[in-house]
């Protein structure tokens, strides 16, 4: 006769109950990290971001505005700040 506890039954039971929770926590952490990283990368855009945006605006100017029926008359009330 032994006083040794029955690890098999109790142990497996316990682990089986905690596993889905652990996976859920793990996935949530990963998701949260991904969201944070995405926000960081979108906020601190790459070094080419400004150049790409400028190129997009220039393309729009050349391909759309220059061909449209608009004027390019110098406006008043503005200042060049840098």
């Amino acid at each position, binding site marked *: 006769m032994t006083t040794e506890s029955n690890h098999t039954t109790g142990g497996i039971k316990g682990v089986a109950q905690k596993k889905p929770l652990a996976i859920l926590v793990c996935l949530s952490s990963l998701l949260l990290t991904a969201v944070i990283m995405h926000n960081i990368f979108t906020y601190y855009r790459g070094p080419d971001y400004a150049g790409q*945006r*400028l190129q997009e*605006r*220039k393309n*729009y*100017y050349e391909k*759309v*505005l220059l061909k*449209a*029926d*608009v*004027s*390019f*008359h*110098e*406006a*008043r*009330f*503005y*200042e*060049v*700040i*840098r």
Partner: protein
Amino acid sequence: MIVKCSLCPIECRLENYQIGSCRVRMHLDGKLVTLVYAKPCAVHVDPIEKKPIFHMLPKTAAFSIATAGCNLTCKFCQNWEISQAKPEKTRSYHLPPDEVVSMALSRGCRSIAYTYSEPSVFYEYMYETSALAHRAGLKNIWVTAGYINPEPLKELAPLMDAANMDLKGFTESYYRDVCGGSLKPVLEAIELACSLGIWVELTNLVVPTLNDDLPTIRKMCRWIRQTLGPDVPVHFSRFYPHYKLKNLPPTPLETLVAARNIALEEGINYVYTGNVPYDRNSDTFCPECGRLLIQRLGYHVAVYRVENGSCYNCRTEIAGIWT
């Protein structure tokens, strides 16, 4: 390099090739350019009563022009097809200032109205046309939301004879949430326009559930009376479902009448309801003897009894520009 536009309170900071929030002013290689100079997308001859301007040259026609663009984003805009449009997506005419003036003269108009969208955003076109119009003996009318900075307004004022300025509501939250702007600069512009000698009439579009709170309307009327005086005409205009507010019903006539009564109680002499056909509340009465001076049927003037700028009966001077 960044260019800061200082025409209106938004004060857009624009990188090269970037277009401002009004959609019509653009940073181009260190300069700010307007995309709509001499490019009106709407040209009409309207009765001056349509602006509405009730106290300047009644029964005359106003040559009315507008370009695309606006610096506000009102959810109820009646002209959103042009005010919220990009100029490159709009069909426009080529009509330089001198041609606007000669067309106005040839059609028997006594004034030129800068209207429909927001004329402040086509400032340069409006300014140069106004100068030529004055030289030709025409009056100028500015139909505006008043979202403009003081400096441009000061320069424009000597050329502008009359203005119908919107006072769309009387809370910051209304201007922010419904119009995409701010109340404070509008109040300052209205006050400045009056002090610079422009004949100002105010329009308040009463939108059910959004700005039809009668205590707030009373507060607004009190501000008008105390800041601008009793002779600034106020038009309470009826809302019809439009643009992004198609879910709301037209303003009940009772609300407009209640607003008008409040304005009269607060001591404003000339209060009208608008966008209501054949309504007796769009007539002008002498504030002294109460006699009917101008009876309006829609945009048509049926009775006109202002003589040399005064009441035909008691000779009280009626505020406005009559000749």
